[in-house]
């Protein structure tokens, strides 16, 4: 005979995950012109905006992978509301290729990102060019194979020394453009854009959908109120 609540345990008690993976350049050059300070405050602001949002359709989870001479997972993938952010410190080379491998493995790991998660957002930020061995192969692997090839990928170039051609290759759609900021003070605009898109997705009926009109939007001059 039917019990009133016998179907209760069959539905997931948590919303589906919407992963956001930040791949951030912390090489020595990021310490100039207050770039590192701006990046830290922008990431902090992004996390606060995610923490403020009421969870409706998706649980926004964030991980931060940093690359300088050392590549490490600065923040393990976890719900944004549980992250206690500590500032990143800039030093050393730009071992971006290894960061691609670390992010690739994280995205492939089904224990971290389950099958029913929404399409992850991956954001690459750099003010220079990779200088570790075989980075091109690693970038190609990241963008063309496995689950990372299916992610919603965005990139930000900071200053004239950033390798925009490489950052363009990172994007997942031919109509997308690398966002370029000359001044470190504009870094936060890019992160506000990513935050708004992500929150918009988390509250939409189909969080897998990325509005294509945003691909070519003037990211630095968007009125974010209109995205909500």
């Amino acid at each position, binding site marked *: *005979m*039917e019990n009133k609540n*016998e*179907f*209760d*345990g*069959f*539905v*997931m*008690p*948590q*919303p*589906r995950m919407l992963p956001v993976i930040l791949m951030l350049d912390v090489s020595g050059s990021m310490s100039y012109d207050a770039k590192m300070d701006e990046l830290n405050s922008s990431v902090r602001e992004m996390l606060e905006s995610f923490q403020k949002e009421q*969870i*409706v*359709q998706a649980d926004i989870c964030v991980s931060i992978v940093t690359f300088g001479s050392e590549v490490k997972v600065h923040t393990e993938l976890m719900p944004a509301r549980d992250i206690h952010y500590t500032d990143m410190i800039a030093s050393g080379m730009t071992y971006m290729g290894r960061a691609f491998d670390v992010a690739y493995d994280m995205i492939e790991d*089904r224990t971290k*990102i*389950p*099958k*029913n*998660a*929404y*399409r*992850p957002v991956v954001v690459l930020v750099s003010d220079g060019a990779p200088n570790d061995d075989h980075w091109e192969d690693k970038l190609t692997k990241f963008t063309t194979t496995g*689950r990372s090839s*299916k*992610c919603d990928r965005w990139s930000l170039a900071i200053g004239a020394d950033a390798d925009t051609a490489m950052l363009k290759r990172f994007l997942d759609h031919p109509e997308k453009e690398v966002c370029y900021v000359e001044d470190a003070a504009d870094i936060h605009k890019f992160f506000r854009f990513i935050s708004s898109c992500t929150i918009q997705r988390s*509250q*939409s*009926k*189909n969080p*897998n*959908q990325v*509005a294509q009109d945003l691909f070519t939007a003037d990211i630095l001059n968007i009125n974010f109120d209109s995205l909500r």
Partner: protein
Amino acid sequence: MKHEVIGYSSVRGALHEKSGLPNQDSYLVKQFQFGTLLVVSDGMGSHLHSDFGSHSVCRSVSRAVQLWQEYHCDDIRLLIPLLHSLWGMDVFPYPKNECGATCLFAFLSNENVLYLGQLGDGSIFYSIGDELALLKNKGDEFANLTTGMDSIKSFGDWSLAAFCAGNKPVKLCLMTDGVAETLVESRRDEFVKLLWKRLAEKNNVCERNNMIYRLLKDWNPVNAGDDRTLVGYERK
């Protein structure tokens, strides 16, 4: 003589209720003289006329199956181009890319052949005899930007199957992704089996539909944003 147990219902997702949008899922249960057809369709949220698109999917599958049957055709692959043509005409004059919708159908003929078809997300569970199976395993498609009737790229986007059921009992459960993607993965089979069991205990289709309606309505609120549609079937 065959005995069929059928139950079906659909509820609007909380996000649609909040924004005053219609339920964009549709379903159809139809008993023809030559067999029984079940269809569910999930209209794509970002498409302007997706509710109309999913209704059209149900109508088009029904018409396509009738035409296909008239030709005494038993190759399910020949049904698909017909279905796409009918759907394109049915949604006209709306552009197809404003009417995107998934398509999941099951047709059990009087000759005891079970035909299954799926385009896009959602799930079709089936059992012939005792074994429970899933038509399309999602695999690693977390990035599943759902393929719909408007966005098919190749015939390979469809999952199709045909089985000779003979006199074995046949059970079916069709669900849109609002149900399928929010179930605890390790307990999906158990959920479907319990559903069939409870449906079989009911006296008539009204009781079964009420049971499914209550089940969908009482869905865990953290995963109730999307529209939810479920059709259960058993032929004893």
